[in-house]
C-alpha cells in the first residue's frame, strides 16, 4: 500500500488539537499533487475518541490505534505504536504538526525506522518524482529546499500557522473508521499532568496597544526607551523570549508560542527579528509596525509598516513626535 499519506492526529485535553486541521489541509494538497490516498490516524486511550472528529475531513479513511498505554502521552508508547502501524501500512508520507509533542517523539520514531524526519516544513512539492520540503533556517532569515535521502516513509512536520485549518476539505458524510491493532508499552518514568504557573499579573490579551522589545534593545537599562514609547501610545510593554530569559522583564510579558498570544489594535515590534515562535503569538494583531535595522528581518513579513533604521534613534524621535501630535 505504498501510495498512502498518513496524518498523525494530535490530541489536547482529549480533543483534536486545532493544528491537526492545518496538517490535513497540507496533506490534502499533497494527496491531490501525488495521487496518493490520504488517511488520518489517531493514537488514543480507551476513553478517548478523536476519530469522530477526524471522520469529518475528506479522506480515504480514519484509522484508530487504541490502547491503554496511549491514554497518557509517552514518547516510547507513541514510537512503538507508530512503528507497528507504519511497518504494516508502508505509507509514502507521514505528516505531523510541528508541535512540542511531535518534537518529543518524531525524531525517535524516524530514527528507529532508519528514516529521515524533515521538521518545521512550510511547503511540500513534488518535482520530477522528488519530494522537496521547504523549511526555515537561521530562525527564518533563510529558507531551505530540503530533500529526503533514502526510502519512504518520509516523515514531515508542518509548521503551525502556515496552512489554514478552516480550508481543510470536509467530507459529505463521515468517512469510515477502521481499527489498527497496536500493543505499545509505555517507556520508563512517570509523567504528571500539565499545569500553568500562577496567574499572570498582566493580561496582555486585553491591551489595545503593545510595544514589544527584542534583543535589539541590547541592555536592560535601554528598556526605558520602549517604556516611554508605550506610555506615549497608552500601551503595555511586552518582549521576545530572550528579554524575559535574561530577567529584564517578567515572564508574563513574553509574547509567543511559549508566552502569551495577543491581538491588539497596534503591535509595535522594536528590535525583534520575527522568529516563528514569536510571530505565532502576535500575528493576529490588527496592525503591526516594526522598527529594525535589518531590512531583511522576518518581522517585516508580518508588518504593515516597517521602519528601517537604528531603534536608538527612531524610538526617541517617534515618542517625541507622538507627544507633539497628542498635544497639538
Amino acid at each position: 500500500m505504498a501510495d498512502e499519506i498518513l496524518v498523525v492526529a494530535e490530541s489536547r485535553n482529549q480533543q483534536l488539537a486545532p493544528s491537526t486541521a492545518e496538517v490535513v489541509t497540507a496533506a490534502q494538497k499533497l494527496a491531490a499533487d501525488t495521487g496518493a490516498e490520504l488517511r488520518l490516524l489517531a493514537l488514543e486511550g480507551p476513553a478517548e475518541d478523536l476519530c469522530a472528529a477526524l471522520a469529518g475531513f475528506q479522506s480515504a479513511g480514519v484509522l484508530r490505534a487504541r490502547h491503554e498505554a496511549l491514554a497518557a502521552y509517552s514518547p516510547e508508547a507513541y514510537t512503538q505504536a507508530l512503528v507497528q502501524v507504519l511497518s504494516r501500512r508502508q505509507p509514502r508520507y507521514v505528516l505531523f504538526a510541528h508541535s512540542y509533542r511531535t518534537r518529543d517523539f518524531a525524531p525517535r520514531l524516524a530514527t528507529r525506522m532508519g528514516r529521515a524526519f524533515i521538521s518545521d516544513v512550510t511547503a511540500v512539492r513534488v518535482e520530477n518524482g522528488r519530494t522537496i520540503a521547504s523549511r526555515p533556517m537561521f530562525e527564518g532569515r533563510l529558507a531551505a529546499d530540503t530533500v529526503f535521502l533514502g526510502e519512504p516513509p518520509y516523515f514531515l512536520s508542518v509548521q503551525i500557522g502556515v496552512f489554514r485549518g478552516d480550508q481543510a476539505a470536509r467530507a459529505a458524510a463521515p468517512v469510515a473508521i477502521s481499527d489498527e491493532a497496536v500493543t505499545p508499552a509505555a517507556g520508563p518514568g512517570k509523567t504528571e499532568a500539565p499545569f500553568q504557573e500562577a496567574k499572570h499579573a498582566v493580561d496582555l490579551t486585553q491591551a489595545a496597544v503593545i510595544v514589544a522589545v527584542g534583543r535589539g534593545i541590547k541592555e536592560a537599562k535601554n528598556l526605558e526607551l520602549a517604556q516611554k514609547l508605550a506610555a506615549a501610545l497608552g500601551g503595555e510593554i511586552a518582549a521576545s523570549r530572550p528579554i524575559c530569559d535574561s530577567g529584564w522583564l517578567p515572564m508574563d510579558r513574553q509574547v509567543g508560542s511559549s508566552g502569551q498570544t495577543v491581538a491588539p489594535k497596534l503591535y509595535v515590534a522594536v528590535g525583534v527579528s520575527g522568529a516563528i515562535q514569536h510571530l505565532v503569538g502576535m500575528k493576529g494583531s490588527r496592525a503591526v509596525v516594526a522598527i529594525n535595522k535589518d531590512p531583511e528581518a522576518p518581522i517585516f513579513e508580518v508588518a504593515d509598516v516597517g521602519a528601517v533604521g537604528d531603534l536608538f534613534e527612531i524610538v526617541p524621535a517617534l515618542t517625541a513626535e507622538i507627544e507633539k501630535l497628542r498635544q497639538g
Partner: protein
Amino acid sequence: MKILVCLKQVPAKDAPVKVASDGANAGKWIRDDVGYETNEPDAYALEEALRQKEAHGGEVVALTVGPARAAQVLREALAKGADRAVHVLGDDLAALDSYAAAEAISRAIAGQGFDLIFTGLQSADFGFGQTGVVLAELLGIPHSTIIMQVEPIAGGVRVKRELEGGFFQFQELPTPAVLTIQSGINKLRYATLMGIKQAKSKPLAQVTAADLGVTPALNRQAIQRLYVPVKTKKTEMLTGAPAQVAGQLAARLKNDLRVI
C-alpha cells in the same frame, strides 16, 4: 553525576545572510564575513550542568562536533567551569544533519558512562530540533525535551518540561537519560579571568570524524537550495533619516491606524 553537554558553534545572530546566486556555489550560504558563537540554548545547557555539579558533585564534559573553528566553544566552556572537553573534528562537519550529528556524538562517547546528556532544544542555524532525541534513540536511553528545571532523585531525575501556551509538566525518568534544555532555564554566568587561565591546562581531546566513520554521507536529508525567503506581504517600508522615518511613522499612527 557525570554530565555531557553538547555544544554547537553557530553563526552569530547578527551574521550577514547572503546566498550565492550563481556559479558552483549557487544556492549556498556565503559565510565570508560570518562570526560564530555558542548556540544559545546550549549555553544554558552548560550552565545547568555546572550548577548540577556545584550542588551535587560530579564531572562536566563539553563536546562539540565541527571544524577547527568550533574549538572556541569548548575553550569557553572550559573557562566557565567544564572539567574537560571533546572535539570531534572534521572540515565538512558543518554540513551534518541532526541524525549524522547524533551518530558522531554517540560514537565519540561510547563506553564513557554518562549519567546525563544535555543538548540544546534546537540549533539557531539548521533548527532541526532533533539531535538530542535522535541521540537518545541511538544510545537506547530515555529522553525528555524542552526542559526548564532539573532535579536529581534516587535513580534518576525529576524534570520540568515546557509545553505550549504557558503550560508545564513534571516528569521523572531513570538515568542515563538525554535532556534537551530550553533557553531561560537559569541565568548564565560569564567566564572569569581566573577561569580563562585555568582552562588552558584542562584536557581538550580531539577525535577525528574520519576515525569515527562520520561524514556528511551519513546524512538522511540534504539541502538542495538555500534562499532568502520571498516576501509576500506588501509592507510599506519607511527608510531615510531617523527623524524623517519617525515623523512619517507618527503620521501613519495618527491618520491611518488612529491610535493617537
